[in-house]
């Protein structure tokens, strides 16, 4: 079947078998291997991507279901060679060891910060409860998401202040 799907802002057209799962399509047909497959049973969350802006487990959605929809993978986080604040915070705060869970953690956290830019630790833990990490013990992951949230709020603040100084409006 032919599908048209936007991944990280780029439109792809591809021929897929109906039984192809989105995670395998991303990895094997689009070569976006940042999305990991850990359990294949909808449990671990390593395969988490955004589907129309919301985190989902891409091992449990068919690629044909993405036809006409937008997907964002971990590769879509950095822009112009600059790591996203979440990626930098994971690095700075040692929020990963083996890194297997990291793409899923980043996407679930990204999804959270889109709707809740200043979450509590409890809200972060709830948002990441479908993502399993066997290495870190989660403490540093929660810390990194907090730091990224602060950093992103600060960036927004800077933009607003710069605009105020130069007398232009942000909107």
């Amino acid at each position, binding site marked *: *079947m032919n599908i048209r799907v936007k991944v990280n802002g780029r439109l792809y057209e591809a021929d897929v*078998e*109906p*039984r*192809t*799962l989105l995670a*395998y399509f991303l990895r094997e047909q689009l070569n976006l291997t940042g999305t990991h497959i850990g359990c*294949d*049973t*909808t*449990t671990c*969350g390593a395969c*988490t991507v955004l*589907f129309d802006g*919301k*985190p*989902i*487990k891409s091992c*449990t*959605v*068919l690629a*044909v*279901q993405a036809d006409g929809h937008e997907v964002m993978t971990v590769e879509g986080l950095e822009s112009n060679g600059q790591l996203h604040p979440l990626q930098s915070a994971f690095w700075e705060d040692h929020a990963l060891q083996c890194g297997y869970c990291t793409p899923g953690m980043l996407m*679930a956290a990204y*999804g959270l910060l889109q709707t809740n830019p200043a979450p509590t630790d409890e809200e972060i833990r*709830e*948002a990441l*409860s*479908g*993502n399993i990490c066997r290495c870190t013990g989660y403490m540093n992951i929660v810390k990194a998401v907090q730091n990224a949230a602060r950093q992103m709020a600060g960036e927004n603040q800077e933009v607003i202040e710069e605009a105020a100084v130069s007398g232009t409006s942000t909107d």
Partner: protein
Amino acid sequence: MFPNAFKYEAPTSVDEAVRLMTEYGYDSKVLAGGQSLLPMMKLRIAAPAVLIDVNGIQDLKGWREADGKLRIGALVRHAELEHASELDDKYPLLSRTARWIADPPIRNRGTVCGSLVHADPGSDWGAAMIALRAEVEVQGTEGNRLIPIDEFFVDTFATSLNENELAVAVHVPTPGGPVAARYMKLERRAGDFAIAALAVHIVLDSEGRVAEGGIGIGACGPIPLRATKAEEALIGQPITEETIATVSRLVPEDADPADDLRGSAAYKRDLLRVFAARALREIAEELHGRVGNE
């Protein structure tokens, strides 16, 4: 892991979906959120020859209130009800239940109706819809019918839906007085199905007595169950410590739990008793002061 090969159909109307279901019959399966069906297909427990993906049917999306009911369309996802704060006043059990289901990414895909049709005895919506005395609206070639939730679940993974009937919505009655609800669930770890779960939905009359009392039991029998004896003892009573003690002791009497990896039957029965007491106490505290004002 990937499923057996299948033919993929993506109808855009309910009529077309029903026509496809009729044409393919037993060989086909409806695909809604896919959060139960796709895992089963990957494990090859299910291997339908045809998948009828209903995600593109606009008429199945969203909810609306009309004729004393809230009609929740078949494509409403768990997460939508979790975050629908505008429904909290009249239908507090919905968000209180939704937040306990699986984990956030699964809740972004899985649907309320899919969970009911899948008919897992541990379905959180199963227990909640029993408490709410919901009805499932289904459409087949002969038209629409409403199935009361007490007639909907037949056995584990079996419902009274005919082979070519599509669940199009679930209807929840609008309460006629002050309402409060609790969803109580114990799980082995975050995101798991319940060891035992209890849904309690209470509507008071102008005298502060229980006008409607619904108690649904999850994961303690072949299907979600109603705590009939406890409901009978609750109706018409003010929620006092005495009522709470009587009612909570009666709840396990309608449960039928089994010893399994999640716990012993005796443990699950006791959980239900404790859940009932906690839920009723919290509901009484919440409604106190609003009683008689409406």
